[in-house]
């Protein structure tokens, strides 16, 4: 069978979680014997499009064994990132689908590439959707009306009207109606976390999202085995993009509040926006115990997680399914995380780590202090993680989709 994968952006220019998911999905599907192609919008380049159709420029390339079709409009519409306009690019999408003749479409993200779903509906091509963020129910994508506030869903448009009044009410209502139409027309809608699934189920009437956790490539994981004694010094770690919503400043503030500070270290892995990184450097105040180690390649995960005793994920936004948390747990490294969204779904107090009130550096410092003072309290957590924590493999995650593809297309009927 032939399956097209849709995503708003893709490798090599973009390498975040959704791109990783779509790559894994398409790659595993190809390995299961299907013909696959990724269709994506390219906002990064204007040079590599060899062809034009209905005024849309497009071109194909190969990445990691996958065939990718990337396109872009000659002049990006100003609302490209949040508009769900059923007419935008529809003729282009229809012609591409008629040429490609897919049996099925699997969308990993619909930003910019939603015309392909409208076209699929017109052409009678079945599709499934995996939700990876809030884009379909929030034009600001993160359910964050401002950098320091969060909302709990559109509430039928009432929340948008109240917190995000820059959008006309008619636009919001029309967008939510289109979203509902797209989601209910899918053969199935999946989410990697229960939190994200519940948010959509509560926001879209009649929708029932199925939870399918993202899997990881265990071949790239090495357990960090250590037995802690009272006198051991604790190394806290942060892994991720350095942006305000990730809350790294909360962590540095908490670290600065620790008593007996010589007994702990903080390693920060990742890179980010210049202004925010400068702000973090100011907070760190040249403290030699705080180390900014920069970005790293995914093959270096064993080095990253062997260099820390506890991972801290202090995000001040929801997070959906933070890969970093599951990679840490797979490496048998306990996690301290904000008591929020997809994080609190993965981190259970006294089971595999601890949670704290989001954005509250004093609360975080309290948890960190307990560990600094009693390193041996990590031992039962590590033991529990080793025995009871199950992190699905990428093969187990993809098997769910493989079964759904077979069901939709009647392969084993």
């Amino acid at each position, binding site marked *: 069978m032939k399956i097209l994968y849709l995503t708003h952006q893709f490798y090599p220019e973009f390498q975040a979680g959704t791109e990783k998911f779509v790559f*894994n999905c398409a*790659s*595993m599907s*190809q*390995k*299961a*014997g*299907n*013909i696959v*192609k990724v269709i994506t919008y390219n906002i990064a380049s204007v040079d590599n499009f060899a062809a034009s159709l209905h005024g849309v420029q497009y071109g*194909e390339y*190969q990445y*990691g*064994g996958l*065939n990718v079709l990337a396109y872009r409009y000659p002049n990006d519409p100003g609302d490209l990132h949040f508009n769900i306009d059923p007419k935008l690019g529809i003729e282009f999408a229809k012609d591409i689908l008629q040429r490609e003749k897919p049996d099925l479409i699997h969308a990993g993200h619909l930003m910019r590439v939603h015309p392909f779903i409208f076209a699929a509906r017109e052409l009678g091509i079945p599709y499934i959707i995996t939700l990876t963020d809030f884009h379909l129910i929030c034009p600001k994508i993160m359910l964050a009306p401002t950098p320091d506030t969060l909302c709990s869903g559109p509430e039928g448009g009432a929340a948008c009207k109240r917190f995000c009044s820059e959008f006309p009410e008619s636009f919001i209502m029309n967008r939510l109606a289109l979203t509902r139409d797209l989601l209910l027309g899918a053969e199935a809608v999946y989410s990697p*976390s*229960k939190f994200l699934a519940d948010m959509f189920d509560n926001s879209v009437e009649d929708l029932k999202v*199925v*939870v*399918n*956790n993202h899997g990881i*490539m*265990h*071949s790239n*994981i*090495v*357990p960090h085995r250590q037995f802690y004694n009272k006198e051991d010094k604790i190394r806290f770690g942060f892994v991720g993009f350095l942006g305000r919503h990730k809350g790294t400043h909360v962590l540095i503030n908490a670290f600065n509040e620790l008593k007996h500070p010589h007994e702990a270290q903080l390693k920060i892995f990742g890179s980010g926006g210049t202004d925010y990184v400068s702000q973090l450097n100011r907070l760190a105040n040249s403290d030699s115990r705080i180390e900014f180690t920069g970005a790293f390649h995914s093959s270096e995960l064993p080095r990253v997680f062997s260099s820390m005793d506890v991972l801290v994920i202090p995000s001040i936004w929801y997070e959906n399914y933070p890969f970093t948390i599951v990679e840490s747990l797979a490496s048998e490294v306990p996690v301290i995380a904000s008591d929020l969204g997809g994080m609190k*779904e*993965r981190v*259970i107090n006294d089971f595999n780590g601890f949670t704290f009130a989001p954005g509250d550096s004093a609360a975080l410092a309290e948890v960190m202090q307990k560990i600094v003072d009693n390193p041996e309290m990590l031992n039962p957590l590590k033991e529990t993680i*080793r*025995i*009871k*924590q*199950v*992190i*699905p*493999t*990428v*093969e*187990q995650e993809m*098997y*769910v989709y*493989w*079964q759904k593809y*077979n069901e939709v297309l009647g*392969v*084993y009927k």
Partner: protein
Amino acid sequence: MCLLKNDKKIIRKSGLFDEKYYLLNNPDVRNVDTDALNHFMTVGWKEGRNPSTKFDISFYLMRNPDVREAGVNPLLHYIRNGQAEGRLALPAEVMSHRTPTNMQKSPPKNLFTLANLRFAFRYIRLYGFRQFWLRAKNKLVGEKGSISNLDQSPLTIQHVSPKVSSLAFTADDEIEVVEKTVSVIIPTKNAGKDFPILMKTLNAQRGFEKIEVIIVDSGSTDETLETAKLLGATVVNIKPEDFSHSGARNLGAEAASGDYLMFMVQDALPPNDTWLATMHMTLIENDLAAVSCAETPREDADLFYRQNSWNYYNFLGINNADRIFSLPKSQDYVSLRQNGQLSDLANFISRDIFMQYGYRLNYAEDLDLGIRLIKDGHKLAFLGSNRVIHSHNRTPYYFLKRGFVDNIFLSDIFDDFVIPQIQLKELIPDLVSSFIFLSQLNSVLDSLSTPVNPEDLENLVLKSIDQGTGKKFVPSTSFFADSKFDDNAIKFLEKLIEGYDLKNNRNIEYGILHRAFRGHAQAVLDYIKNSYEVVDETLIEDVKVCFTKALSIILGSFLAFCYINRDETDSQEMKNLYSVMMEGV
């Protein structure tokens, strides 16, 4: 692709293609476990291989110069046009034997063309007069009813709904729990770092009152034993020297208390938490003795492994289907293999039945058990829709050994398994020529400007192989320099050809290995056409490794034939070869 699909449909519908006949009469195709009709459509008819006893390719082309000149598949021509135009499918005396009509007798002299005689001579030399006679008899008179079709009994599998996210914390649906216990039996030795994931996934299985895991360990020195105990498994220890594939599993069964046994391997992984329950439900609802399932590859599975599985499942008929096996009408080698296969990757069986039979042999004990069960009237199932995650990337040297061991075993248990009459001293020049050819083929692939489409890759590879056929060249031993062989394979091959005076073997022709390689290459290319629209640089590299492993497995097979054909002049050398090849597989 579509045209090929349509053509296949037309041929299938005509009843003029007989898969069993084709596989039984073409051992090189059988070794690939490829789709027989696909092979016939792409390669077989061009090589003059007949599709069944009902159609003679050579005869049809000889009688119809217009078809020969058009270069079209003669069987398709016959179905589409020839039949309606009154053209003959077989020499008249064969037709008259089968259907008494007024057809004219074809002149007997036509069978004795120079080409036919050369083919007959070569065939007798390799496969013996008996096989030649069987083939000739099939050609001349046909063997009605000697070969049965795949038993395609429809099988409905009720998949137990997986809890999907159950491997984490969040799922909330429930499935019915049966008051039964399952014992999962896994032979282990240094099971590796993924073993804890297997243990946890087994512990997470739902639908049974109790699941116990029994490992039969033959000397692990890594964390296997610690992990097993920590995660609640029962450990049965045996000495490494006491290990055998059957013996270890039988010991595990003796230690088991479950109503059902599930035999697995240490590097397999259930895909979800209802995998066992689905196997159980299949067994109960279809009144089966045992159920096995296909594998789905790990994310790092290489091209060779994936195409091998895909072709093998095509051979078993489970790529897009679940099948129930029972004793086929014909008990020839191919039919028994296609209808008696169980797999130790996942073999679910009631404990009572297993204890009556047990495993035997030190290799292919799963197939042996399956055949014994169907011979006693039991039914088995092999599922394509419920799979187990499993694959491993082995070296060319492993596949060399694997080809050897597979064929030794198959010749041991199947009386009708055809053994080409070849000796090692004849094989060596052939080996050298094939390996030189492979190195030349790699150069051709290196010079390819990517991306290309799979059909162009196919044309290029097959053209290179066909151009090599019959070509003479001066042998050398420098072909390893730029090869994809691992050091162990190179050491082995260098030792194997050491002492053979290749200088006196000037002007070697590509021979039987080359022809067998063509079959394997075609199987690889079929898989690529099925799964790729574009061949890029990465895939070309995979293809090179894949062809190296394919040639290794072919060579292993033919070394097995040499071993079976050994005589007093080379018996010591062959015994040494046997012990090297059997080690570690």
